[in-house]
């Protein structure tokens, strides 16, 4: 068994970054994720592994520092919360276009605008449908525990390099701030093991110059590049991950990710105490979305409640997955308010069982 520690979700992200052999972190403070940069500094990550840690002058600068370091093949990351992630969108779009691997962490807070510093899941559209301009997708992982905050850092880096694509950890203020026991993975070397033929580290006589760009003035070439990207996003669907909870005998289903999934686990148990057989499907990857397992499950259930701390974003993917064959409703408190298991159960009884 690995080393056990009691940590906040944000600290687990930072510790995992050091252990995953991350080469550089660039970030800008914002609640509720400032602990990531604070932890990297107080832990002296730069001494532990030689990792670069830099507080940038803005999220714009931070994401473009990530872009620069990623162009050279480094394992590089940034983290922020909703308003900061909005600022980063141009840079993320450039990275998707230039096919640069990196890790972005969003510890979501309530919006829109400056909103609130309390937890939210209202950045689902931004995370899974692109976010910035152009046709692109990120690999999106949704941790539901502090343990997964740690584990997914490593996983996200591996996937980002496998597909040469930015990966996003979509967390929220609950998971970022809560403390749980974490089993930390072993320190990995800061070694690059992937194909480095494309990196810009200086043109040596044995190869052509390497260029990192997202520009194609010829629309036909740009269309070809877009085709290539779309093919890649199709291939990324092999990475779909999800968790089933009490699904085998379920006659109703809840779908929830992140902290809402934790709340729904409790709601499922409360429903089962009443003799109603409810299951929970927890998408772990939000892009790719677990549409097929959801379609399978939909065949055995009478109704589905999509639960999210938003006005209803993920429900669109749930509905698309089940092709309107079964009733699907949304429930969630939002704008920074967290729903309780009882509230979820109540909505479930009214909207799905009773309705």
């Amino acid at each position, binding site marked *: 068994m690995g080393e056990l520690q009691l940590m906040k979700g944000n600290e687990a992200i930072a510790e995992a970054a050091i252990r995953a052999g991350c*080469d550089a972190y660039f970030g800008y403070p914002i609640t509720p994720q400032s602990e990531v940069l604070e932890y990297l500094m107080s832990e002296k990550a730069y001494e532990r592994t030689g990792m670069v840690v830099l507080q940038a002058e803005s999220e714009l600068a931070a994401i473009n*520092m990530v872009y620069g370091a990623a162009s050279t093949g480094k394992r590089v990351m940034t983290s922020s919360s909703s308003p900061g992630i909005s600022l980063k969108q141009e840079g993320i779009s450039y990275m998707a276009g230039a096919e640069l691997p990196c890790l972005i962490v969003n510890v979501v807070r309530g919006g829109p605008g400056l909103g609130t510093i309390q937890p939210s899941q209202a950045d689902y559209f931004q995370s899974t449908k692109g976010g910035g301009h152009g046709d692109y997708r990120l690999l999106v992982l949704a941790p539901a525990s502090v343990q997964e905050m740690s584990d997914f850092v490593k996983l996200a880096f591996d996937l980002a390099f496998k597909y040469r694509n930015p990966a996003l950890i979509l967390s929220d203020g609950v998971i970022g701030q809560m403390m749980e026991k974490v089993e930390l993975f072993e320190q990995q070397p800061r070694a690059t093991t992937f194909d480095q033929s494309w990196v810009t580290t*200086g043109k040596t006589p044995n190869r052509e110059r390497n*260029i990192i*760009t997202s520009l194609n003035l010829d629309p036909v070439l740009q269309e070809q590049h877009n085709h290539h990207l779309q093919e890649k996003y199709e291939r990324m669907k092999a990475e779909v991950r999800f968790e089933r909870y009490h699904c085998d005998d379920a006659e109703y289903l809840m779908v929830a990710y992140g902290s809402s999934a934790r709340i729904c686990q409790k709601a499922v148990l409360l429903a089962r105490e009443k003799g109603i057989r409810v299951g929970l499907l927890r998408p772990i990857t939000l892009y790719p979305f677990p549409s097929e397992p959801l379609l399978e499950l939909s065949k055995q259930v009478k109704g589905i409640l999509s639960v999210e701390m938003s006005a209803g974003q993920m429900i669109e993917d749930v509905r698309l997955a089940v092709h309107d064959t079964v009733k699907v409703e949304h429930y969630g408190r939002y704008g920074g308010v967290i729903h309780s298991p009882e509230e979820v159960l109540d909505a479930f009884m009214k909207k799905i069982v009773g309705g």
Partner: protein
Amino acid sequence: MDIKDIIKPENLVYKRTPLLTSNTLSYCPGCGHGTTHRVIMEVIEEMGIQADTIGIAPVGCSVLAYDFMDIDMVQAAHGRAPAVATGIKRTWPEKFVFSYQGDGDLAAIGTSETIHCCNRGESIVIIFINNGIYGMTGGQMAPTTLVGMKSSTSPYGRDVAFMGNPLKITELVAQLPGTCFVTRQAVHTPAAVRKTKKAVRMAFENQKANKGLSFIEVVSNCNSGWKMTPVAANKWMEENMFPFYPLGDMKVDGRIVSKELLSLAGVKTE
């Protein structure tokens, strides 16, 4: 004499550096961008650092600099080249990193990145092409557009009360402790090109010695944006740009040498 006799190697007086590709330049004839590219590539060739140099291309007319410079390059979002350069230099401190940026890129949308990169003293080189206008997008007003100067978004001339003052960002960064070498040059005559080349060489030598950030402004023409012939544009530049943007070193080896800046700081010079 036959042409074959003339082109003998021993008669060679000038040769294009192999670090410029044979791609046709996308710049308007007479534009200063091409000459500045050449100067930078000559310095990189002479220092033998091609294998260790990474350049950052901006958004602007020089967005395609990577088509012409035979080095590894990264194209940055509009204004963000200093941040991109920081990301590279911090993770590869032993490499040579430079950004190449226009005045809209560096002094409008990217002002924050410029100031903070200079203030952190990142050990990089910034080449700043000041043509007083947004060349690429068709001649709109830039932060550097002179008072009274016409552009497509100041068609009756820049009016300070309405549009604000032109920004001398080079004078600004010279005062930051992170900059080591700050100079303003031009490339409109052979003599000016020689001086610019000397400055570029010094900038890369500074980077080699890890002395801090070197910042080279090149006051340049944009004959298309200014709607002049190349010759008239150079003359107009000498008569109008140079008085407001005087050429010369502002800071050398971390010490301010410009009389204008010293007097601003209250230091008496004779």
